[in-house]
């Protein structure tokens, strides 16, 4: 998780929304849409990875 410290899920989600909107526009150049697609899928994977990690058990600190 440490390496993801500066990764912000909220910003990533906002960016994903922007990408989606741009991609759904009619006259996006193919090159740009390819780049957007690449960025979007990577970002989505990163979000997923960030959100879904290993299931945690309850730790009792001062037992």
């Amino acid at each position: 998780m440490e390496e993801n410290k500066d990764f912000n899920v909220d910003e990533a989600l906002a960016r994903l929304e922007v990408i989606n909107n741009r991609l759904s526009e009619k006259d996006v150049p193919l090159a740009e849409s390819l780049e957007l697609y690449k960025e979007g899928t990577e970002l989505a994977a990163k979000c997923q990875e960030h959100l879904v990690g290993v299931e945690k058990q309850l730790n009792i600190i001062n037992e």
Partner: protein
Amino acid sequence: MSIRLSVPYREKDEAKALGAKWNPLGKYWYCEVLNEGLMRWYRGPRAEAETEGIRIAFDDDGNVIDGNLTPDTTDNEAGNVTDIENENEQNDEENIFLTANGPINLAEYSSVSAVSDMITAKYNSIPEFRRIMVRGEVTNFSGHTTHYYFDIKDDSAILKCFMYEDVGQNVLDFELANGQQVAVIGFMDLYKPTGKSQIKVTRIANIGDGAAMLAYIRLKERLEAEGLFSQDHKKPIPKYPEKVGIITSKSGQAIKDICKVAGKRNPYVQLELYHVNVQGRNAVNTIVSGIRYMDARGYDTIIVGRGGGSDEELMAYNDEAIARAVYEARTPIVSAVGHEGHWTLIDYVADKRVATPSEAAEEAVPDIMVHVNKVMFFAKGIRVNMLNKLEQRKHILNERKAELEKNNPEIKLKEQKAKLEFLLKQINDSMARIAEEKKNHLILLSERINNNIISIVKDRRSRFDQLSEKLDNNMIRIVKEKRSCYDQLLERLDRNMLSLYKEKKHRFEILVEKLNGLSPTAKLVRGFGYISHDGKAVTTVDDVKAGDSIVMRIHDGEICADVTNVNKNNTDAKL
């Protein structure tokens, strides 16, 4: 024992006020004691009420006893009961039930409502209950939307109070709150739906807060003035926590609820429990330590809470030390102490206050699936959009390709090639035809030439033959002429030559005779010799001088001699 009542919906409040209760499972109204007030809704056997003494109460007439009931109502009730009585007499036999313990005549039993009514009647008949004055501390008051429900208590007892909304508006000159000491005037009443006795308050006065409450209120005011409750100070609860600290008892229901809810919402969030005593002597100390401990260790959110309890059980959470620890913490803190409508001091300071530990877990651990679904939605959207884009491009490509195919130079080339081949063939055919024609023409011409030449040659030949014949004839004639001429000449020549020869031969013979007499050799024989010096003939004496060697040739050899003297003649010597 419950007595069933048939209360129309529009009369339910009235019935409720008279002690009727609602059974939510069976969905019917009933009462435990049937008083005369409830009698009008009673449709049960007449004898039951009679046995329980209600009959007497009824016969005695409620109006006379409490004076609250209008004569109209009484009349109606009387009529009703009379009707019921009649019905009951008719149905008497049907109300006998056979049980293991013998037959039971239901008619002998009171309905609950009837008994409830009895109690109400009793309350109404006792003057001390009709005007009751009591003082105590307000408790269990959770605000009001319409009517006021609260309890008043002292150290060992508790009384239920009820005040109509309009009464409250008229008599309340202060904000009713738990912990206040109040003086209440009202009358005793049995609330039939719950079977609980209550004071129906007609007057209420604030006679001062309870001591503990007073201290609490002062503390609260002080902290508020200090800004501990300020909205500006409240930190937002992180939306994507990784580690959530929980400060509660490890053995309470709270931690179980939190784990259950948090695990369901996002099992990837690390939950860590700092075990504290939630009540009792060490509660404040351990809770403060817990807050400080967890605040120093980078938790995203801290939940401080416990399950509901009485005011006394929740006491610790009203402590100033805890309030200050929460205020000083840099980590967002969710408080979940007590229950709805009952705030403790920590609830005012915490960044977020909820009523139960389950709600705290919902607050601190957002539902992961909401975000995961959002991500999946976006990912899917991006894929679909991209595929659409590609599909669009593919379509355009196909269109262009078709267009291009139409203009394919290869096809054009083929067409042109075919055309060319056709033309070539045409040309070849034409050429062949022309060649054939020319050939035929040539043959014709050459035949003609041949014929002409033959005729010419023949012509010439015949002419030549004629000429050569003529020539031959001429030549023969000429040759004959020349021959005869030659013959004549030759004859003349022969004659001339012969005469010339004879003449010459004669002259030759004469000359030969003369020549023989002049020969040097003939002279040598007669003693003459030939003298030479150095190969040269010596013809004069000047050719030699004394001492020279000379050679003298005679007819039979040479004499070599040296000149001893030379004497030249004075006159020319003659031979």
